[in-house]
């Protein structure tokens, strides 16, 4: 027990004194959270800037309810200088210029920003259509209802915190195990410990305990920053993230052990770990949702442990599912850990 404690203490000190490791395990993923939190907070409020020249009856005479709906997608300013307005569109300061020529509505936009161009065109086509329809006095026969598939409550920060946290934990555990194994094998400490009167499992358990402790620190910082700065709202069964990240840590450590068993140098171990972790993070939806991804991407993501950790975290942290929703992801993560550890132990060497 004393051997386990002192080994764990030595490894923890080694980690927290390694400024690079600490940066990449904690600060670097946190930078993404701050970045994404900043970029996507006003996502819903993106409106087109339109400059109106003179009177435009379809806008000016629109009923109040229609006008309010239009204001959600258009930010209309009035101007009398058409040349200046067109110049603003060319420079990208405004999205379109509109003016009315008799019964013709003229919309001039820049193709430089294709998304805005399409939005502006679509919006004004709809305005003209509905004005024409109103002119005929007919009651519309068809109507349109739109609804987004995601839960209304799933604001971007609710999605990104669990995803980026999963990525951070995956990096920390994988890199920690891989470099630890390679460095200790190269500097002879593995063999030195083998000749000490302690069971091998003390060394392994100490490393597992340290990785779990680091993961808990990462999660605490992520959730803390999310709640304090970006309005993250945790739902009922969020404490389930602790057992989830324990299982996740074991799965990612297994990947790290495999990388460390194969690699001959620390650089190679870091390279292999990067090669696995970064694509895995993309394919597991850590950086953006996979809802629109093609079927084969979804299929690949199902065999990646991070995907299941992310799912479990999303369900329990922000989607308000019960604690039982974490059970299946946890079992998958543990199964992954067992299989990969078995492979790693076959390739394991005490010395170079």
């Amino acid at each position, binding site marked *: 027990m004393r051997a386990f404690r002192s080994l764990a*203490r030595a490894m923890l000190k080694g980690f927290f004194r390694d400024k690079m490791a600490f940066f990449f395990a904690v600060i670097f993923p946190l930078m993404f959270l701050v970045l994404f939190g900043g970029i996507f907070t006003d996502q819903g409020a993106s409106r087109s800037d339109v400059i109106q020249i003179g009177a435009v009856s379809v806008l000016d005479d629109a009923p109040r309810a229609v006008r309010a709906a239009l204001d959600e997608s258009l930010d209309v300013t009035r101007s009398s200088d058409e040349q200046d307005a067109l110049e603003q569109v060319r420079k990208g300061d405004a999205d379109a210029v509109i003016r009315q020529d008799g019964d013709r509505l003229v919309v001039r936009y820049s193709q430089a920003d294709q998304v805005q161009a399409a939005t502006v065109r679509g919006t004004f086509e709809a305005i003209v259509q509905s004005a024409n329809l109103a002119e005929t006095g007919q009651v519309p026969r068809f109507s349109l209802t739109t609804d987004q598939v995601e839960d209304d409550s799933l604001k971007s920060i609710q999605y990104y915190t669990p995803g980026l946290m999963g990525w951070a934990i995956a990096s920390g555990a994988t890199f920690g195990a891989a470099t630890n194994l390679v460095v200790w094998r190269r500097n002879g400490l593995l063999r030195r410990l*083998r000749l000490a*009167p302690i069971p091998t499992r003390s060394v392994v358990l100490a490393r597992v305990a340290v990785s779990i402790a680091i993961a808990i620190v990462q999660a605490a910082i992520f959730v803390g920053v999310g709640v304090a700065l970006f309005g993250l709202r945790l739902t009922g069964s969020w404490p389930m993230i602790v057992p989830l990240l324990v299982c996740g840590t074991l799965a990612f450590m297994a990947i790290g052990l495999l990388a460390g068993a194969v690699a001959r140098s620390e650089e190679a171990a870091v390279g292999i770990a990067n090669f696995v972790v970064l694509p895995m993070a993309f394919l597991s939806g850590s950086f953006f949702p996979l809802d629109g991804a093609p079927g084969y991407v979804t299929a690949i993501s199902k065999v990646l442990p991070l995907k299941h950790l992310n799912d479990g975290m999303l369900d329990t942290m922000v989607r308000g599912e019960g604690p039982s929703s974490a059970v299946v992801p946890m079992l998958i993560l543990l199964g992954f850990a067992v299989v990969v550890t078995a492979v790693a132990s076959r390739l394991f060497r005490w010395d170079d």
Partner: protein
Amino acid sequence: MGVEIRVEGLVMTYGDVRAVDDVSFTVAPGEFFGLLGPNGAGKTTTLEMIEGLRRPQSGTVRIGEHEPWRREPELQRRMGVQLQSSSFFERLTAREQLDTFGALYGVAPGRTAEMLEQVGLVDKADVRTEDLSGGQKQRLSIACALIHDPEVVFLDEPTAALDPQARRNLWDVLRSINDSGRTVVLTTHHMDEAEVLCDRVAIMDAGRILELDTPAALVRGLDAPVRISLAPGTLPVSDARALAGDDPVTDDDSGTTITTRDPSRVLTALARRDALDGLSVKGASLEDVFLELTGREYRA
């Protein structure tokens, strides 16, 4: 204190290479034993089998009653090992390394201060190992091997990669290791080191032990001539030749040298003439023994 090591018929092959080829010897309790040879001679592999890091393909090792490859904690508690000077936990201070190794062997925390004192690292106690010099790292690594006061100590090339000054400084520490009657086994590729430190030396080359004896006996067995040199101008060359009799004499800018198998006669004659200015006497060394045994110049 001190324990006997018996090695019988050790063999280890890697592919077609017989890295260790039928090696046998016995180390007496309290003896300082050296395994000497160039890189690739099989010293380290032999040592690893004795320590228990490798199981011999054939042959046996016994330390006391134990077979080390079984890695019994009972034996490991009586055994101190120093492998490489870099075998430390990353980013810990000298004191923390000793505390950690001490905890692995279940020794009282007070031992750390004692060990720092013994290897002269008290003022480096709070320096991280990465910032220690090569010699200081070696001292610390030896201190880590001795933290639990073992009866038998294995040192694998403790002075490799040290400059001559640091090497000589470390010798003092190494000498003190078996003061208390510990058995010590050391590998080295430095001839002078084996001569200074070891009670007995096994000279290894190509996986075999070529000769095993005390350094003095090995050198004596050579029956090599002694070289007696004088400063230039101390003695006219003609006088030197007369004095040397049949022994060869060389004379150059650096002085006059008489090579003889009867140094006492030559030295007495020189003393009688009061011609001892800048005198130096060089006997054969283990280097010469190696040359004699292998027919090759010794290269570390």
